[in-house]
């Protein structure tokens, strides 16, 4: 069977309330009730929600427009530092901090994107690595600002304030709800975006950049915008991450971590489905937690699983589900599929 891609699964415009979105929102809104029952815990839920925001935004770049960034952890880290520095230097404010996180990552992403948007393929990937490493390096070196290797410590979790409503995010359950609401907004927003004409342009560029340019799209500008946008989502995730950890560390900015997010997206099937990153992030975090609790060599098993996956089913879990559904006759394959086949 030939490999399927994102474009083979027809996108539907209009309402984002597909069955998949329903399942996703349901799982999101009930997680605190069943997490302990299945052997997990609240904090893991927060981390997964945060990394989902990161991964969904990243897949706009990675899956949809097909630009392979291997330095995206940098923007997550920049968001985390910006949030922390805002709390410590300017004011303890949730919205201010998140705004600072998003702005800082957007600016950094915008600058980098301006340097690399005329590149393609491997040189694009390599330049993202170089810039990612520079940010990571600076985070470690600038002790006065970032706290260096030990990180920026003691970042508060500011209260949620919206008009007359005010509640504390100090305990993990309330922070989970806050992150989950943001994640739901991000998921719905991105879903609308990729199913709008803009999403089609992204896919056109992935399939053939030259053709897209001839058709009249300003490819450079769209590439720049997509990178910057995905950096903004990374910044939001970073701001939340620094709240969750009450600190910001340089490690998330390393090449290793940036490689892991790519790995998660690929395992999940981000190249073939909007929901691929969701599956990948959940699988990675749960596997790490469960296998990591059993054996110290969990990376061996996860690595092996990953290698086998790339060899046999590079479309990832989402591709696997798609194939299974096709075989079971739930949804005929191909472009003429009458029903939605998002997983």
């Amino acid at each position, binding site marked *: 069977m030939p490999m399927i891609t994102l474009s083979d699964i027809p996108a539907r415009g209009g309402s984002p309330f597909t069955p998949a979105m*329903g399942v996703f929102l349901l799982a999101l809104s009930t997680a*605190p009730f069943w997490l302990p029952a299945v052997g997990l815990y609240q*904090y*893991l839920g927060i981390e997964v929600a945060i990394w989902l925001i990161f991964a969904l935004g990243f897949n706009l770049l990675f899956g949809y427009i097909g630009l392979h960034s291997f330095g995206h952890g940098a923007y997550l880290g920049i968001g985390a530092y910006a949030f922390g520095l805002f709390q410590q230097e300017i004011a303890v404010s949730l919205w201010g901090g998140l705004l600072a996180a998003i702005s800082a990552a957007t600016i950094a992403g915008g600058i980098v994107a301006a340097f690399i948007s005329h590149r393609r393929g491997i040189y694009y990937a390599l330049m993202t690595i170089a810039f990612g490493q520079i940010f990571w390096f600076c985070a*470690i070196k600038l002790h006065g600002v970032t706290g*260096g290797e030990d990180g920026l410590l003691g970042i508060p979790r500011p209260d949620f304030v919206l008009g007359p409503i005010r509640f504390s995010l100090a305990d993990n359950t309330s922070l989970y709800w806050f992150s989950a609401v943001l994640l739901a907004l991000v998921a719905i927003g991105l879903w609308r975006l990729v199913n709008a004409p803009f999403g089609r342009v992204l896919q056109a560029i992935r399939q053939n950049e030259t053709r897209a340019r001839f058709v009249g799209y300003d490819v450079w500008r769209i590439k720049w915008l997509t990178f910057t946008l995905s950096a903004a989502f990374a910044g939001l995730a970073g701001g939340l991450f620094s709240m969750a*950890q009450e600190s910001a560390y340089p490690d998330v900015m390393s090449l290793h971590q940036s490689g892991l997010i790519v790995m998660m997206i690929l395992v999940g099937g981000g190249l073939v489905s909007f929901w691929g990153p969701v599956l990948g992030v959940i699988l990675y975090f749960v596997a790490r*937690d469960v296998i990591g609790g059993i054996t110290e060599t*969990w990376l061996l098993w996860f690595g092996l699983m990953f290698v086998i996956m790339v060899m046999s089913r590079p479309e990832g879990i989402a591709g696997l589900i798609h194939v299974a559904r096709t075989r079971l006759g739930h949804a005929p394959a191909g472009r003429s599929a009458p029903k939605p086949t998002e997983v």
Partner: protein
Amino acid sequence: MSNSKFTRRGLLGSAAAAGGVVAVYGPWKHNRVHAQASDRPIRIGITSDASGQYANSGASDRRGMLMAIAEANAEGGVLGRKIEHVHIDTETIPATGSRVAERLINREECGFLIGAVSSGVANAISQVAQRYGVIYLNTNSSSPTESGENCHRVKFVWDGNGANFSKAAIRNSLDAYGGNVMMVTNDYVWGHDTARATKALVEQYGGTIMDEILVPQGTRDFSAALLKLQQAGPNVVAAAVGGDDQIALRQQVAQLGMGDKMAWINNQQDWPDVYGLPADNLFGVFGTTWYHGLDLPGVQDFVARYQAMYPDTSMKVPGNVFYNGYMATRELLAAIERAGTTNNIAVIKELEGHVMSAESRMQHHDAMIDPNTHQVQQTIYLATANPEPRDSDDMYRILTQSAPEDVRDEASLGACQLESYDDTPTFDA
């Protein structure tokens, strides 16, 4: 279609209803009051690094804890309860440390956390532990900030820190070799903290700092730094370089034969970092809290117990990292026994100010857990390579030993502000 719609709505409805029910009884706040049954085991979470830069020391650290736990269980446990342990790899990454701590406390229901080599990881764990009131033993991270500005009511620090080791090493070296000092500093917080302490001491004892060479963490090629050292020609080189970086530095210094051209002070030398290396790699003077060749009662028995428990380990004798892991765990269990309860505040109060006899710790002086910084004040040894080893494991020659009060870290005393008991959540483990 309508059928599926109905189903979906129905599903949502019943889920909402279920949610409502759980919301009343459900896990809004993790229930930290467990059953008080005396047969319920005491659970300890081990947070040592199993991968990353400090994987090797982390493994040694963990062996120490496991031996202490095994010995306690062999004597019937603590308060009549068995000790259980869970280990999760913290990967020498602070973010992982946070998550592991959350998991151990919430999911594994551990009442105590033990283990650290990296100060970044130790700090990340202690922030989480403080939020839950869970006692955390930092066994092997020697950054002065751990018992200074990043101290916590629930955290106890068992290793000597950079300031302790500097104090022990600097004066002796300046007297013996001369006052021109160059510094080679690992460019991260532990390195800087240690370097700051060293600088102050060098000036206090009348030496001069010629220059400080910063080397990034992860440096594999030290030749630029070594060239600078050669050109400057100092009497003493004070190095604060840790982990793998230090091993690479040692190898390159040995190859250049620079080990005896100038007096090297390496603040602290962890046993797992040098074990099995050739003797010429072990130049200079360095600090340690314990050595298996100390001529004190109990040491030989301790080594024998280690060898009986870990016959297949490549490290044939215990070192300082193992020792700290073991001592920390043993003292925690003893404190629980003395407190007669696993209530965290009661155990903290038992640990604070507790004096441990020199015999029990196999050191030359009594040690004490400082009630103000929660750092163990203990004997600090200076060692160098052993020119006449009895066997291949006999790598050190102990030069001096300093009493805890002579090497006290005064700076952290001012920097540390522990949370009050009231601000520390209380529970029974």
